[in-house]
């Protein structure tokens, strides 16, 4: 039988033990090296991607023995990003799309990297338009632009063949896209055309497709305020187009709950004939979603009525919460991992070689973040290692420089994309959706966000 005192002693012992266990777990991490957690793979990457990264990690750690690089799974999505930021579980180095860099800057959520970038000596090498994306109102630089892309029309060559279409002659107008989608749906039973609908990506791709028809979704008043103009003829046309593909042609399949990850997964699995997204998605499709390269085709998005092609990109940044020592290591890593392969022949070749040997994509079409000259030079360095089927992407690589590039609208980009998700969902899930009324309402709602 236990007396109150022995119970008290047992309780205290238990508390002391819990305390000392907690202390143990902290001490175990200290091995003299600085641990740097860096964003690398999207969730679900295959073993080859890990092998390729392991090789790069080894090379880096040989050059920088005081830094222990830890690759962390990371995929940028608006909701999880904010949750990770709030919860303090972001990697030390991660990437964010251009669209969010402005918001993050305004919220003081990015680390000032001006001195570090100046010291590395290539501030003037960047494409100035792109450098603008990471420059705050105070003129300081908050990240390294590492990659840019234009949106393109991605198509499944195998489904084209099954439907009796020529995969080497992809559609060049929206009407041709519609006709091809209908044929694919009828002949193969798969979705001929699909578009993203959720998690802000519905709004993003609606904006891509409306811009290609000449839309201007927002006016920059030049004094820090913006006027929402989503209710315009090109957006209306786009929504009507999606509505007709869905309800008249029945060529969009039965799944209207798609975001960046799930649409890529469906496309890689051969369930979607065509869709629009960034031109740089090939790597993810093949590496992370297991698509066979033979099936892949890429061409430019049709542009009509003075429309342009929406571009974007991402920047490598440092978490705002790290200490000075980690920050320095983070910059060293960004320079080594992302930038040197664009600037330095040896680094470019080593990177391309490592990726090619691990069966990873080399040569995916992107837009230059550095000046055109440096970019073309770097493409020559790695010419021997390019392993993506560039001849299946000629529709894009030959057409993209003739299209007018358009930037994403600046005011409240992601929140307004979230509102626009509903427009896409409405026309795809409700045959009688009142497009005029929806458009009228969205400008009111978007303006309310812009006026905040």
């Amino acid at each position, binding site marked *: *039988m236990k*007396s*109150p*005192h022995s*119970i*008290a002693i047992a*309780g*205290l012992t*238990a*508390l002391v033990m*819990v305390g000392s266990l907690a202390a143990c777990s902290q001490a175990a991490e200290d091995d003299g090296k600085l641990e740097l957690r860096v964003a690398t793979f999207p969730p679900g990457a295959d073993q080859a991607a890990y092998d390729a990264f392991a090789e790069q990690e080894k090379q880096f750690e040989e050059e920088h023995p005081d830094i222990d690089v830890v690759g962390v799974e990371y995929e940028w999505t*608006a*909701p*999880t*990003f*904010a*949750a990770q*930021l*709030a919860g303090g579980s972001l990697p030390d180095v991660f990437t964010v799309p251009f669209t*969010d860099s402005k*918001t*993050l800057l*305004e*919220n*003081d*959520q990015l680390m000032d990297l001006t001195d570090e970038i100046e010291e590395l000596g290539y501030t003037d090498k960047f494409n100035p338009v792109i450098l603008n994306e990471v420059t705050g109102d105070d003129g300081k630089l908050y990240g390294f632009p590492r990659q840019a892309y234009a949106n393109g029309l991605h198509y499944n060559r195998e489904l084209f063949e099954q439907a009796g279409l020529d995969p080497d002659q992809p559609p060049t107008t929206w009407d041709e896209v519609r006709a091809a989608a209908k044929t694919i749906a009828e002949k193969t039973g798969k979705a001929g055309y699909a578009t993203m*609908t*959720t*998690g*802000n990506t519905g709004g993003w791709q609606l904006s891509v497709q409306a811009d290609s028809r000449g839309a201007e979704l927002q006016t920059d008043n030049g004094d820090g305020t913006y006027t929402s103009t989503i209710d315009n003829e090109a957006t209306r046309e786009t929504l009507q187009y999606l509505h007709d593909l869905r309800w008249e042609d029945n060529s969009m*399949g*039965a*799944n*209207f*709950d798609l975001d960046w990850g799930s649409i890529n997964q469906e496309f890689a699995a051969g369930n979607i004939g065509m869709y629009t997204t960034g031109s740089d998605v090939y790597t993810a499709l093949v590496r992370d979603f297991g698509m066979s390269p033979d099936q892949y085709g890429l061409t430019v998005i049709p542009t009509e009525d003075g429309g342009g092609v929406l571009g974007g990109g991402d920047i490598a940044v440092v978490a*705002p*919460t790290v200490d000075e020592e980690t920050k320095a290591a983070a910059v060293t890593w960004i320079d080594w991992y992302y930038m040197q392969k664009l600037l330095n022949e040896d680094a470019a070749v080593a990177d391309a070689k490592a990726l090619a040997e691990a069966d990873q994509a080399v040569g995916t079409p992107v837009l230059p973040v550095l000046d055109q000259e440096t970019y073309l030079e770097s493409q020559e360095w790695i010419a021997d290692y390019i392993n993506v089927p560039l001849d299946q992407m000629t529709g894009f690589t030959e057409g993209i420089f003739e299209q007018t590039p358009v930037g994403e609208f600046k005011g*409240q980009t*992601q*929140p307004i994309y*979230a509102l626009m*998700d*509903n427009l896409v*969902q*409405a026309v*795809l*899930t*409700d045959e009688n*959706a009142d497009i005029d009324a929806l458009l009228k309402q969205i400008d009111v*709602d978007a303006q309310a966000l812009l006026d905040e």
Partner: protein
Amino acid sequence: MTMTREPDAATAPDGPPPATPPRASATGRRRRTPITWVRGGGLSNLVFLAPMLIVFGVFSWGPIVQSVVMSFQKTNLITPPAWVGLDNFARVLADPNLGVAVLNTLYFALLALLFGFPLPILLAVMMSEVRRGKGLYSALAYLPVVIPPVVAVLLWKVFYSGGADGVFNTVLGWVGIPPQPWLQSSATAMPSLVLEATWAGAGGSIIVYLAALIAVPPELYDAAEVDGAGIWRKIWHVTLPQLRGILFIMLILQIIATSQVFLEPFLFTGGGPNNATLTILLLIYRYAFQNSLGGDYGEATALSLMLAIFLGLLSWAYFKLTERWSTN
């Protein structure tokens, strides 16, 4: 060692002495002093309770207090928070989506009440009538509760697939019904969520009702049988009145739970299509994590606080109103 005092002490964990401590009655002193508290086992009680108090304080009450504070602030958790008074509440109340979310939540609660509330009672009554294999039925009924909710939702998402080759649509095809859009239409999305939620939640309620049914004195049934009552009259006149107390509790618990529905709309539809399944909790989530990269944590906590206060008042009013009926 005074065995008799230990149970007394255990029922008064935070220190007040037992109502009639043996020693107090012997000396005629009833006053509480630190010495009597220690002698009464107060110290060991406190030490015994300390881990739980710490865990509750740090992980439960700390965040609650912090979120109340945050509802009056503008913060992105990186820069220092700024006090904004009632601004967050005003902005939340002015949001056109709030009305949509409240109506959707009420709609979910209503559907859940219609389908989800009577079903477990019915099943429990039926199962209590079964003579053999009772354990098997209980296990089967409880199985969905054991499946992790996220897994269950993802599984049902496959069932609900909108094409003709979806699991449910295939079954419907056998009896000649055309494929249904399930989650892909504003009209059917919410009922589809309720169906899954009912499936997932019924098992827990069934176990509670089964336990309550065991407590119904068999003599009452015997007496009813003597009076010539059939099975329905027995259920109506004996079972349900005997379950009254537990039914009232389960009802308010369900109302509270359905007001906080989040998992199903979040995982099934993300609030779509076109906001048809946007619920209050999903709206709170959007304030905090989606609508703005900075995160409107202040607005999110303001709405949470309003919901908590509303549910608190509702529960209080409910218990006041039903006080007389729920106790016999």
